[in-house]
């Protein structure tokens, strides 16, 4: 078994009126060979919408909370890098 495995899974289609909605999830499995244990990260990625006329549309599930947290973390990291660089420039005679 490999160390990291990515898998895309489709759930049971749900019929609502004339639309069929199929939820899709992405799974990340992390298992260290020889050790009893592992980590599983399962998250929703999209829903596949099938209409009566046969058209299909993939609507992505956006994790807005994560996006905002990553933006804040990037801001903090950017400030840190800027401070380190400015400190380095100042020390030069």
């Amino acid at each position, binding site marked *: 078994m490999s160390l990291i495995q990515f898998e895309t899974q489709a759930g049971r289609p749900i019929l609502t009126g004339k639309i069929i909605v199929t939820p899709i999830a992405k799974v990340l499995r992390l298992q260290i060979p020889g050790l009893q*244990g592992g980590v599983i990260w*399962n998250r929703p990625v999209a829903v596949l919408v099938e209409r009566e006329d046969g058209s299909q549309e993939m609507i992505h*599930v956006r994790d807005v909370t994560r996006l905002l947290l990553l933006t804040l973390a990037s801001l903090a990291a950017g400030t840190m890098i800027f401070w380190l660089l400015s400190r380095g420039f100042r020390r030069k005679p």
Partner: protein
Amino acid sequence: MKEEIIIAPNEKEPAKKAAGLETIQSTLDKFLSAADVGAVYGQPIQHGDTIIIPSAEVVSGMGFGLGSGSNVEPGQESNETRNEGVGGGGGGHVFSRPVAVIIASPEGVRIEPVLDLTKIILAALTTFGFMAGMLARMSKPNKDHIELSE
């Protein structure tokens, strides 16, 4: 219990180990089955013509360990009482966080994100506090330059 081990130590030890490993394996299988779509998407809720599907992110981690030992070396005969033991332990954590709600109605399908405001506000306060501290340090005159000029 102690006498049983003395009478047939070699027969009991593998059986105990096998039982322990079996328990671990079955628990691990249950843990791996959590990586299913059903774990991420909740049961659809019907409200008139509209169907609401909650979705969440699931992170789970688990680990086990098993060991055994005795006071007699393998293959060594001993007149002393043979003491042996098998032990194991494990731990795990499952974390779930709502991500979005899927609303399917005859008009169409839309996805409403779920915002964790507490987390966002705390992270924003921490980040802006950190940035303010960094900028304050940057605006201070450099001690090295002052010493040189003196």
